[in-house]
């Protein structure tokens, strides 16, 4: 009898043990790597190029990642070395006249880091034509409602012979009143008018070249929020065409002015921004159910990108003008 009880007891104990389960422990050392130089440099047509140099914080390490203030930078425009000014706090500046088609090479070294290098070129100008802004009433996929929106239409021509990469941004200019506090204990205020320039959201489902999500995705709350309002696209659908972008943005007021910035990007600029936007928006990947895009970099030995661009901004106009 006792023996039987012991057996039952053992079975019950083993069953309880089974149900407790066991979880895996992930060894973070798999991710351990050395800190790297992080370099961002976006040369464009004009005379000033900013270079930002910081260091990364490797996963698993304790140390902080301060800006790199003692970097040695070799900036070459079409093979000619240029003077680089250290502005402090990891910021550097080159002042030299640059134009579309120029080649830029960059080498950065700093104490305690492996030296890095990258190269790019400044794209040729993009020709922007007509621009208009109109208040429309339309069904909005994001808000799932019929509502007033502003439609910005900007026309440009894509060259047929090259594979081109673009970004577009919508800007709103408004005058708003701001409180200015004064008095011994800041007990009084007056108002003043402040000019405000803001990048605004574009409903990317309204424009075929920007549309990356299907309607089902919108229903399920997936988003394609771009990095700092840079809406990216390439010319696969419009190669060689004169094309009008239709950019629907939220409607605020008929008195606000609107403009569009169209960027022609180098592939490295485009791929970097696309990779960080995609990684940030991919909710399935965060739980291991989809591929997460690796962060693009053309900085050999480091992180970041050196990517040229050419920007064209339309004039400011008010809706329905």
């Amino acid at each position, binding site marked *: 009898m006792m023996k039987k009880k012991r057996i039952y007891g053992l079975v019950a104990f083993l069953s309880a043990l*089974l149900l407790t*389960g066991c979880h895996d422990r992930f060894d973070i050392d798999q*991710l351990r790597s050395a800190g790297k130089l992080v370099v961002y440099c976006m040369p464009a047509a004009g005379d000033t190029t900013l270079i930002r140099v910081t260091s990364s*914080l*490797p996963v698993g390490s304790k140390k902080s990642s301060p800006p790199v203030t003692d970097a040695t930078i070799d900036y070459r425009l079409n093979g000619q070395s240029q003077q680089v000014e250290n502005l402090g706090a990891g910021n550097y500046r080159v002042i030299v006249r640059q134009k579309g088609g120029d080649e830029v090479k960059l080498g950065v070294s700093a104490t305690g880091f492996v030296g890095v290098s990258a190269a790019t070129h400044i794209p040729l100008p993009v020709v922007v034509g007509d621009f208009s802004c109109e208040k429309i009433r339309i069904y909005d996929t994001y808000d799932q409602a*019929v509502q007033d929106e502003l439609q910005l239409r900007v026309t440009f021509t894509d060259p047929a012979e090259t594979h081109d990469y673009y970004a577009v941004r919508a800007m709103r200019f408004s005058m708003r009143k701001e409180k200015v506090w004064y008095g011994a204990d800041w007990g009084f205020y007056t108002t003043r008018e402040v000019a405000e320039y803001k990048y605004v959201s574009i409903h990317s489902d309204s424009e075929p070249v920007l549309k*990356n999500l299907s309607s*089902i995705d919108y229903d399920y709350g997936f988003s394609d929020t771009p990095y700092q309002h840079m809406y990216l696209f390439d010319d696969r659908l419009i190669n060689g065409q004169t094309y009008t972008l239709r950019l629907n943005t939220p409607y605020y007021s008929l008195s606000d002015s609107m403009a569009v910035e169209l960027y022609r990007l180098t592939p490295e600029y485009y791929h970097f921004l696309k990779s960080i936007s995609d990684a940030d928006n991919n909710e399935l990947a*965060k739980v*291991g159910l989809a591929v997460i895009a690796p962060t693009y970099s053309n900085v050999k030995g480091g992180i970041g990108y050196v990517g040229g661009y050419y920007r064209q901004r339309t004039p400011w106009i008010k809706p329905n003008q």
Partner: protein
Amino acid sequence: MGDLSHASVIRVVIRNEKTIIQYMQTKMILFLCGLLLFTAPLRANTPEGSLQKQMEWIHTTHHVDFVYNAEVVVNQSYQGPTLRGLTLEKALATLFQGTGISWSRDGRYVILKQSKATKPSNKPIDAPVRQRRFTISGYVKDTGGESLINATVYDLTTRQGTTTNEYGFYSITLPEGRHRLRLSYLGFEEHEEAIHLTADRRMDISLQERNNLAEVVVTGDMNSPLLNTQTGKRTFSQKDIKTEFSLLSSPDVVKTVQRTSGVAEGVELASGLYVHGGNNDENLFLLDGTPLYQINHSMGLFSSFNADVVKNVDFYKSGFPARYGGRLSSVMDVRTADGDLQHYHGSYRIGLLDGSLQLEGPIQRGKTSFNLGLRRSWLDLITTPVFAIINRSNKEDKININYNFHDLNAKIVHLFSDRSRLSLSTYWGRDHLFTKGESLWGSNTAIDRDVIENRFNWGNFNMALDWNYVFSPKLFANFTGVYTYNLSRFNTLYDYTYKNGKESTVSHSEHGYHSTINDVGYRMAFDYRPLPSHHLRFGHDLTYHWFRPQTFSSLTYFGSDTKADTLKLQGKNHHGTLELNAYVEDEWTLNDHWSVDFGANLSLFDTRLKQFFRVDPRVAMKYQAGQRLSFKASYTMMTQFVHKISNSYIDLPTDYWVPTTERLHPMRSGQLAVGAYYQPTRHWLLSLEGYYKESNRLLQYANWLGLEPPADAWDTKVSEGRGRFYGVEADARYQDKRLKIDAAYTLSWNRRRFDDFFPEWYYDKFDNRHKFNITMRCRLSKGTHFYAGWIYRTGNRMTAPTQYADMPDLGEGRSQGFVYERPNNIVLPAYHRLDLGFDIHHKTKRGRERVWNWSIYNAYCHFNTLFVNVKYDETTGRIRAKAKGYIPIIPSFSYTIKF
């Protein structure tokens, strides 16, 4: 000769080399031109005092049978000492000494071989005459008339054999004379038949099923990896699928195949099938010859194949026969059972989540039969009243969740004659998910009502009308009309109403999406066996695909009683394509050692805007080093014209299929496989296979957002890339009457490169370097069967950040974020799991068999890691990573009654 069933078959046969072109005067000569040369046997009389007379005496005295082929010259005179009083071994040694004949013993068989170096100089006694040959053909069936696929038909006399095709038909051409045929099939009693062949002969054979675990009889099993020319083929009978363990006690074809070497299962429980590094959409699933696009229920928890009606599954992962095409990585040819032509019987099963019913029997005894399998989940029968009770007690918030799936397989077979057979096979499978949330609040004067509703429906309808006709004993033909319908439908509804007295405000939106595929076509397949050494297959098929991905409709209205905005939107995509395939292949046995299977699959894919034509060569060869050892090699190319577009590793109903467009190219792969197969003893079978596969024009969704790209320009949202996949697979099988053990080990590398995504080669998500799987099935007692299966593999890979860094300031300020430097840069902790199962059989008083099944998935409750969560801790400034796993131990049961 006495009683033929016991007599050894002994004839004096005289040889002379002679080509007989006359045999090639058929239309098939076009395919065999220059290849069909063989030896013509000649006949002679038996002299007195010959070896043969002595062999007859040994046969009578020692009860052994002599087995030898036509080359062995037994019509020699015997001048040696008497054999009386000698032991069998001594008698044999004495008899064949100096005759140029070597002998060996295998049980009651004495196998004779002619030594070429010492071929006797005896000349034929008669003038040479051409040996006549005749064909034996027919069906191998079970006692209920069910045809058996891959059954072996083996002539012990000439040591030549063949297997039945996917309709149970065989054909073997042999020299005139006496032969002893052995018919065998795993799980069935072996049958031997002695025949005197003087003309073409029709012979349908019924085999008796064994009730215990079948003892493997590998010698002469022409479907065994040891003897067939195929590399990378696995065959599963219903007994292999309906094991004592099954997840949620529902036997599953896909999960059975997942245990095979060279196959990665992907995400746990999701029924993924990543074969030799391929993607989940690179597998061709054929159900009675019709393609199946949606192969899962419950997003992978159950496969669409109802094991009750599945008769045979041939699974190919390399060395693809020429008759298959259209997918890069694997072919799974599933055949359903015909239905008993003599008796009514069936079974019903109730399990933890689903139940099934299977019925079969004759409609017209011996002529027409039916087989019906129905399976349905029944959880909704509980959830519906449960939610009704909950909702009754809560007036403000109501919730409803209802999920169910069903599948129905039906097959009718009619035998017009012993040459003509018609069958109609249908499959209808559907999943349905419904969720509804309703909120109601307010006072007597004002009420708010909020309703959110989702409906999903997805599944397949397949139909195949099959006509088999035996044109001649050597030529079997099959004509099939196929229709496939695949549907994925999704509807959402949102409704908000505010009522205040007589005034009301409404906000209402309905969205509907559906993606469909309609395939209609026909197949013509010919199976021609002109000689035992040649097995020709040729045919073609034509399919019209009509893809309609993401058809969209929307109805929206907003406003009040007096004024409302109403908006209706509709959008659709469609792609009509025509696919034509033609193939020819010959399995040619060159001699005792060498055999080769060669052919080609030609495909034409017409998208209206562009035509693609591809020729895929298929070659396999085997070297039979001995009865217990063989070596094989194969090279095959495959082309795929259709793609499943999805952003996730799990099978979602929102996924859709599309054809290759003019902007893209068909995906292609070439695969080389080599293998060694060894049977050290009767109970063991060992194999070692290696493969190297290269795939080009692979597609990968390039945006990594949401669930799927918009279908109207999907081909601009994908990038093309390459894959390199290679590895080694070792398999071992042990089987006796009580115990069966299967062990498989895979060492593999899966690498990909998509330049738009990452400009270097990187490892695939399912690059499981090591995979080891062992399963054991045994009979504990007469009615109790036990299963244990353990799997261990390297964890899946995942992309994890390696750095935390500044992000660029593009005019909106600085920020920081994770940097992902390399795709799939980490390996998740090793996956391991133990599954246990018991079947307890019992006979009821009425003679019905009842089976209790108890299954335990993940018996020691190891929460295998699904992903690693990496977070930056603002307060400590450190990055932390934690493994996340959610699948616990899952016990289940089912109860089956067979009648």
